[in-house]
């Protein structure tokens, strides 16, 4: 099997070795040096490509495969777009986004026309160059905590508008009427009807079927099947769209929006994210590999000028609109630089345009090179801003920390059953937003009706905790009813989010001790307070005054806690010769009852 395929074409494992190896080496190095991961991938691609070590000879094939990373990216963008968020950003998206794209496209197209490119090519160049890199810009904004600031809002809106614009642009590309564009025998209206029909089918089927299907699969409790289903949805819809001649990215985006409001959103997001990450990485590697350095050598002046013109146009447009968007002076340069590069969609667009025959074949490699070089310029520009531009503003106006808009909840509740519900309701009643994770789909459906923010997911997953905002939350309440899982989650949190305070639900005393071994300071025995209260009611029924009964219960609790601490100390000592849990519990009970006999209640006529 290996021998046959290995001769002409390197087999899958060899390719994987090369790509993964390059990624693992180049990306962390790039990040360490202060460049983003995108540059790392590009560098890795250059290194292993025809102009580097020549480990890979045919980047086109891999580029085609890695296209799917862009599809997944669009899916995730759709997933982030619940209608509320969209409505809040409506004006900046249409205003700032529309302005940036239109003006930049017109200017870039005009320059292209001026240097003697054909009109059709100029249109493609204008639109393609107007796009910025979502991957670079979003990541940088997140790293610098800019997402909550005016620059962040506007930047996000512009990127979103570009992402959305890609969809009709890709769809309409064939209509620009290139030589190879029209290949179907169908009249145009059949194509259009097919497209609309497919979209409607996706929307209707998506609305009606995905939720019950997700629930059915979630009920099975197999994580990998859930992941498989998430991928299946994206692949299925993307292929359907392709079959009717629409863009796969559009389909994926649609699928994302359909799932944005579902309670499975976080789980799906978490499952897809690594695939997207790797495929996007592969995509950038492929771009790096296909950069034509011979072209750079022969056409140095032309290409560098093009990069320079591109940057000037984009920075100029962004800088001009910054004041209107309410971006403070010291952030304007940063904002303009952040979105100054060409984006990954330019690669997609040029490739698609080339394939559709809308773009002159000799232009595509040059344009790709220009965009890639403009990406390389971003970290340099940011460095210039940091060292030279921002310090000027620091002198004039007092440094104001970036607005801390905490979009995540301060509290994460894992497990929304008998225990988690009460904790959650108390917090909810006190206007404290909580993010809730639970893995019982039917329960989630019920609670969601009452407006709680509940997500389907298993709290023992690091990625899901991260998606739920564990990095920025202050408190995590572990209220799952699976004993061993509680400790698992606690360990995970202690290990990865040491600043997060952990409250944990314990089943009984033995479990509570176990959790104390895992570093939970005061595990809450779930039945203790209820039972104590019942005992208090028993005392009242037997004639104790309410206050007397309450005091008796308080005294009992205090004694119990003391005894527990004592037993725990012993328990820790002979952890080595651990007996069975049942025996342990019985021995603890003996010690408890012995100490209860010392709890004395008042008596006699001592009072006035």
């Amino acid at each position, binding site marked *: 099997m290996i021998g046959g395929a290995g001769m002409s074409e390197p087999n899958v494992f060899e390719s994987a070795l090369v790509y993964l190896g390059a990624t693992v080496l180049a990306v962390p190095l790039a990040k360490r040096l202060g460049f983003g991961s995108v540059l790392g991938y590009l560098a890795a691609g250059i290194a292993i490509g025809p102009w580097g070590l020549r480990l890979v000879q045919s980047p086109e094939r891999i580029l085609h495969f890695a296209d799917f990373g862009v599809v997944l990216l669009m899916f995730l963008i759709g997933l982030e777009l619940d209608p509320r968020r969209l409505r809040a950003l409506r004006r900046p998206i249409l205003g700032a986004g529309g302005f940036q794209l239109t003006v930049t496209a017109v200017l870039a197209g005009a320059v292209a026309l001026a240097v003697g490119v054909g009109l059709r090519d100029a249109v493609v160049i204008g639109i393609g160059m107007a796009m910025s890199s979502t991957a670079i810009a979003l990541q940088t904004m997140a790293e610098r905590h800019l997402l909550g600031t005016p620059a962040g809002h506007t930047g996000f809106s512009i990127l979103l508008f570009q992402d959305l614009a890609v969809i009709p642009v890709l769809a309409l590309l064939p209509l620009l009427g290139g030589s190879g564009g029209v290949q179907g025998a169908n009249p145009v209206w059949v194509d259009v009807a097919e497209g609309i029909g497919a979209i409607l089918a996706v929307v209707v089927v998506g609305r009606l079927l995905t939720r019950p299907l997700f629930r059915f699969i979630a009920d099975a409790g197999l994580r990998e099947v859930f992941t498989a289903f998430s991928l299946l949805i994206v692949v299925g819809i993307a292929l359907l769209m392709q079959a009717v001649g629409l863009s796969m990215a559009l389909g994926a985006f649609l699928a994302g929006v359909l799932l944005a409001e579902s309670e499975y959103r976080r789980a799906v997001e978490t499952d897809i994210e690594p695939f997207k990450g790797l495929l996007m990485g592969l995509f950038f590697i492929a771009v790096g590999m296909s950069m034509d350095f011979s072209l750079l050598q022969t056409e140095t002046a032309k290409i560098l000028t093009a990069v320079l013109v591109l940057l000037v146009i984009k920075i100029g447009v962004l800088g001009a609109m910054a004041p209107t968007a309410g971006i403070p002076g010291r952030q304007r340069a940063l904002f303009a630089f952040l979105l100054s590069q060409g984006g990954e969609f330019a690669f997609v667009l040029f490739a698609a345009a080339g394939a559709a025959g809308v773009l002159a074949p000799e232009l595509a490699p040059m344009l790709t090179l220009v965009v890639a070089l403009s990406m390389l310029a971003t970290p340099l520009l940011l460095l210039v801003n940091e060292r030279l531009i921002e310090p000027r503003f620091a002198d004039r106006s007092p440094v104001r920390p970036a607005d801390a808009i905490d979009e995540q909840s301060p509290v994460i509740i894992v497990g929304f059953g008998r225990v988690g519900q009460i904790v959650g309701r108390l917090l909810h009643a006190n206007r404290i937003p909580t993010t809730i994770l639970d893995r019982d789909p039917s329960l989630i459906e019920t609670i969601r009706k009452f407006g709680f923010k509940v997500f389907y997911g298993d709290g023992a997953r690091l990625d899901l905790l991260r998606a739920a905002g564990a990095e920025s939350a202050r408190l995590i309440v572990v209220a799952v009813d699976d004993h061993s899982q509680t400790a698992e989650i606690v360990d995970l949190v202690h290990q990865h989010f040491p600043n997060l305070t952990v409250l944990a639900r314990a089943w009984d005393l033995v479990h509570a001790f176990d959790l104390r071994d895992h570093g939970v300071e005061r595990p809450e025995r779930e039945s203790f307070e209820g039972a104590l209260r019942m005992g208090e009611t028993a005392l009242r029924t037997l004639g104790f*005054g*309410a206050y007397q009964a309450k005091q008796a219960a308080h005294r009992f609790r205090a004694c119990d806690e003391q005894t527990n601490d004592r037993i725990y100390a012993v328990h820790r000592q002979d952890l080595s010769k651990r007996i069975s849990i049942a025996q342990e519990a019985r021995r603890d009970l003996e010690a408890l009852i012995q100490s209860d006999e010392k709890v004395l209640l008042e008596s006699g006529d001592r*009072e*006035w």
Partner: protein
Amino acid sequence: MPTGQQDAPILVLFAHPAFRASRVNRALSDAIRNLPGVHFHDLLEAYPDFYIDVAAEQRRLRMARLVVFQHPVYWYSAPAIIKHWMDQVLVNGFAYGTGGDALAGKDLLQVVTTGAPGDAYRTDGHHDYPLVELLRPVEQTARFCRMHYLRPVVIYAGRGLSDPALEEQAFSYRALLAGYPQTRPAPLSVGDDWGGGHERA
């Protein structure tokens, strides 16, 4: 358990953290708790967690003409729940301040029991001050709420009281409430020295 009428003209706010161990307060309470027109309200029974239903308390106060604080003297003051009740219920806009006239014109009577005998509450006694001085905070609270602070009922040396003496105290407490307002003790003016207790053992 609240007994008597909810809208009674006499509201007895009672507090004793060790009620069952106090023979005096058991006798006093038993004597008046079922009187018509009296609402006997055991605060610690109603609020063992100290979480007070402020609206219900204010509603009862509006109905009453006479408000009685019945409690032992603890550390020259009242058991904590009485103070907590005052903090929670007698708020601005209800008991004082703008629109705070809900209590204006009503009577307030303190019925207190002490551990020490009466002569301990003298400048040359064990506790250095006459009880009148120690009860000033409640007296002034009543005055600030435009209530009439009536001359208090004080039962000294609660533990050592003989059975007949205790019975007599209980009877006269009952008579005072049953005959109200005819039996109303005199209201005190600022600085009045009522010389000790209304009753004495």
